[in-house]
């Protein structure tokens, strides 16, 4: 175990904590930008520090292909390679199974990919995934899980859940640096509460430094989504971090935090930036829209980021999709927005005003009071009264 997790404040299920990792002391709830290939598209590590980024995600599958984990190891680990002094988390490569399924074959041994770089077959076993992650050197590493889309039904889900537990044991055995890197287990089980329960208990028995809730954020309906999160957060230990993988939209993060989750990652903020969309309290702002041509306001007049302090919507409108700087500026703003959201979640819980924060957030996003039903249901379970923001 190479981390410390100390809860500093609570509101019902929601908690604000200090997560001490080998490279950085973090505050949760927190959002982690995704730097798949060893870079957050278009931003320097300086800028990431500037906006308050605490942990970045790197992807084992991509980095193992290029530049290879051996090279990263030889040059002193990923932190040194990309010059990022704060914390890093690497995914196991498992998610690629789902997203690149037409190239993958899953067996008890592991996952065979066809390398997209040179077509050679690549076998990713739990042992191999951990070895690669050991070489990369991130503060948090993820166990290789057998992840199945939530839109799939049938015995495959049960098979995947049990296999995930068997693979976690192989990951634990293969892990050579438990005092420098924290191995998180991932809860699978699809949308079936019975399977999820078995998986949670199995993982908790292994006494890991932290736990992730996986297999979500893949197209399931929101009602099922929040219920799985709620069930898992209720069953996972209080004194360890809980990471909901692949989440996501600001609204989802607020709901999951209310239900007791601590960590999130998603490509959404940076990906949507490259399509010209900015994140704002009201939802989104599409900079490509003609209405932006003459709009000399910043993206968000209340935002304190470098982009909102220096550039107008009109200017960004010109750049977007025509020049790389358009996506850089929007990525910068969008990440700032997500990190500011993280900071607000943390401080509002610590300062005892979490319900007020949630209501304010919902009011801005749904000024007409049309808060989606799934949010209302989730907040009910979380014990947060949002009746003031709902028109019904």
């Amino acid at each position, binding site marked *: 175990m190479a981390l410390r997790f100390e809860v500093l404040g609570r509101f019902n299920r929601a908690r604000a904590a200090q997560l001490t990792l080998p490279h950085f002391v973090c505050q949760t709830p927190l959002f982690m930008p995704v730097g798949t290939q060893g870079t957050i598209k278009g*931003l320097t590590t*300086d800028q990431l520090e500037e906006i308050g980024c605490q942990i970045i995600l790197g992807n084992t599958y991509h980095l193992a292909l290029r530049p290879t984990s051996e090279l990263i190891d030889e040059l002193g680990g990923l932190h040194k*390679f990309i010059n990022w002094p704060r914390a890093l988390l690497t995914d196991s490569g498992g998610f690629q199974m789902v997203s690149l399924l037409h190239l993958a074959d899953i067996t008890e041994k592991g996952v065979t990919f066809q390398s997209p770089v040179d077509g050679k077959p690549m076998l990713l076993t739990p042992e191999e995934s951990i070895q690669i992650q050991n070489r990369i050197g991130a503060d948090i590493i993820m166990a290789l899980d057998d992840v199945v889309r939530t839109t799939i039904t049938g015995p495959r889900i049960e098979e995947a859940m049990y296999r995930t537990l068997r693979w976690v044991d192989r990951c634990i055995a293969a892990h050579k640096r438990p005092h420098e890197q924290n191995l998180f287990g991932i809860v699978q089980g699809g949308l079936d509460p019975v399977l999820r329960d078995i998986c949670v208990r199995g993982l908790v028995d292994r006494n890991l430094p932290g736990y992730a809730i996986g297999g979500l954020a893949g197209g399931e309906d929101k009602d099922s989504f929040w219920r799985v999160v709620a069930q898992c957060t209720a069953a996972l230990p209080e004194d360890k971090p809980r990471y909901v993988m692949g989440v996501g939209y600001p609204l989802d993060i607020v709901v999951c935090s209310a239900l007791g989750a601590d960590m999130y990652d998603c490509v959404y903020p940076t990906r949507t930036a490259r399509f010209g969309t900015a994140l704002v309290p009201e939802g989104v702002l599409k900079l490509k829209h003609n209405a932006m041509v003459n709009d000399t306001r910043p993206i968000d007049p209340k935002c304190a980021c470098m982009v909102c302090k220096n550039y107008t919507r009109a200017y960004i409108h010109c750049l977007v999709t025509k020049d790389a700087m358009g996506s850089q500026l929007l990525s910068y703003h969008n990440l700032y927005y997500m990190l500011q959201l993280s900071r607000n979640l943390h401080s509002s819980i610590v300062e005892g005003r979490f319900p007020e924060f949630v209501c304010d957030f919902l009011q801005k996003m749904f000024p007409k009071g049309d808060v989606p039903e799934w949010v209302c249901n989730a907040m009910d379970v979380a014990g947060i009264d949002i009746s003031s923001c709902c028109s019904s």
Partner: protein
Amino acid sequence: RNKTSVDRTVKWLDECIARSPAGGAVFGSIVGGSNIEERKRCAQEVAVRNVSGYWIGGFGLGESMEERPSLLNAVTDNLPKDWPRMICGLGLPEEVLQGVAAGVDLFDSAYIYHLTIGGFALTFPLDRMEKNDYNYQLSDQGSDRTKINLRATVYRKDATPIVEDCCCYTCQNHTKAYINHLLNVHEMLAQILLEIHNTHHYLGFFRSIREAIKEGCFEQFQKKFVQSRREHLAADV
């Protein structure tokens, strides 16, 4: 054709001046192609107009290094000394030096942009050429010691910065190995880092020029610079 171009350009200049708002700074264009007489004539015509500076066009489009100085001089010899002279299309350091020698003040080119897009980083030494032996980083990939191509596999594990004592953001924070990786995986950050370094390095070159002029040894500076690059090209052959 050159004559027509010059006539037209001067005529248009008069029209621009007539239309330009009071207090606006208009730069007069000097054209004339590769014809020394036309260049001279154009310069003389524009020199008597009411302009705030001179934009010298049509260079960097195929004239040779040998014929350029006389063409440049034909222009600058006929321009008043009190107003700035700007030129477009001269990007290579040797070309810039030719422009400076002829009395040009401002340079505009896409040289840096093309370097960056191609994955190149400038590495030619900026120190003042007083020493005879240069601290070149040994790169034996057929580079011309003025720049390196970060895509080359030789840099895969090179944990040193592009230029050892460069104080630009890129050299202070990142290694050639990282930039090589970024280029391989087609990440935006590669161009950002290269552009920062190349711009910084190129501007440093201009600073050296200014210092050399102030110290009265520009001619020497130009000679040594050109000579050293030729020597290394010859040595590589």
